[in-house]
């Protein structure tokens, strides 16, 4: 896998942090992105709380998943750092980022392969 292989960043974040993440990415020059609603749980298996003497576990919490394809692993690492800064609250549930290799990328409008 050579350095200039494009990479896809998949970031699962808190919905309320999305605007901040988007803004931070934009300032760093990463404007393109795809986003959708997901649900998830991490290693804590969601949140457990006591309500009126009953234990309640809420397992699947709403999150947003961002996908951003960038031209290189360096870019991906940089963007990941930016996302982490903007999305962090320090509390459980802040989410994860995964970097996925991309073999090829195309732009539909022009039909060309892009880096």
């Amino acid at each position, binding site marked *: 896998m050579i350095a200039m292989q494009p990479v896809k960043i998949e970031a699962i974040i808190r*919905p*309320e942090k*999305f605007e901040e993440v988007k803004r931070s990415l934009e300032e760093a020059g990463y404007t393109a992105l795809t986003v959708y*609603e997901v649900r998830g749980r991490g290693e804590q298996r969601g949140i457990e709380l006591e309500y009126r003497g009953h234990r309640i576990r809420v397992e699947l919490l*709403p999150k*947003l998943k961002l996908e951003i394809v960038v031209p290189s692993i360096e870019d991906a690492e940089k963007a990941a750092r930016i996302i982490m800064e903007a999305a962090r609250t320090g509390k459980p549930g802040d989410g994860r980022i995964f970097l996925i290799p991309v073999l090829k990328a195309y732009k539909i409008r022009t039909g060309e392969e892009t880096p």
Partner: protein
Amino acid sequence: MGIDAAATAWLLASTAMVVFMTLGLGFFYGGLVRRKNVVATIALCFLSLAIVSIQWIIIGYTLSFAPNTLGGFVGDLRYALLNNVDGSPAPGTGIPHILYAAFQMAFAGITLAILTSAFAERVSLGGFMLLAVLWTTLVYDPVAHWVWGGGWLGSFVKTVTGATPVDFAGGTVVHIASGFSALALALVVGKRLGFGEHEFPPHNIPLTLIGAAILWFGWFGFNAGSALAANANAANALMVTHIAACAGALSWGLLSWAKTGRMGSLGIASGAVAGLVAITPAAGYVGPLAAIIIGAAAGAACYAALSYRLRVGLDESLDAWAVHGVGGLLGAILTGVFAEKAIGGVAGLIEGNPAQLAAQVLGALIVMAYAFTVTYLLGLLVDKTVGLRVTETEEYLGLDIVQHGEEAYSFGE
């Protein structure tokens, strides 16, 4: 006649119900459009009601219901700003004049709301607001005057056919006028981007069915309220209104089932509305068995009209023409067939009075032609001046975000 308190009680309720219908139409239409235009579609119905109501108390009521001026084209100005419209009985009725004006106001409001079907998902808000004022003043008010306000039409048709056309609750004034105006506006404004190329599936059918339920409910106020009293005539109107809705729902539903193997809920709901439309002019003149026939015929005819519209590729988007225009025309005609003297004092073809049928047809055609023509011209006028349609980009993005700054359903949280 003094004030009839029971009639007043019923008309207070009826007026509220017709206002509710108008807002409810927003949900009926709103569920049928794409997600990006639902707010705009509902807003058009709210705005129709608001704009027309203000126009109505300033000028609309007097143009529609004051004694003739301009040779019976409209009423004179004696009721402008609701001057002389107070708590004393409205002429010829037992309800307060101001209540009569309010009840009729709701009719004017819904008529405009119906025709927003024509330019759904692409109309410019400014253009619509201008058109709203022009249309209600130059189309609705005159037509209401001709049919209900003692205008020229009645005596003219009587001279020609020997009978006076009747329209119990607005088959002609409301439904033919709005339906054929919608047809005209659809021609002016043109198809939606992509119409004919890809599907435009309704984005929220339950929302449309909520609208249908409100329409059905409100229609009792519309039709049975038009008796202007809490009497046997109102009771008959209520019964036949309901029966026609049921027959329309079943006829459209079963026909589409036979043809396609599936019975869409939108077909059931549209059939109910078609039945309601068609019984509107007849509600005070026909009995329940005729109502079955009228409702069933309307379900079939409007279904055929809708299929025809799709076949010819006409984007009168939410079918005001196919349902209200065609259903209203059919109802006006069938009133002339099934009217029973014992019920509403008017005899139709079946009781040996072909003149009434002729009067119904002539009256309906005149209104249809007037509404279509004047609306077409008004549509052109607005389009050439402030513009009746948004840009391609705006249409692509959706009216909700562009014109209203809103997204109907939130994203993220």
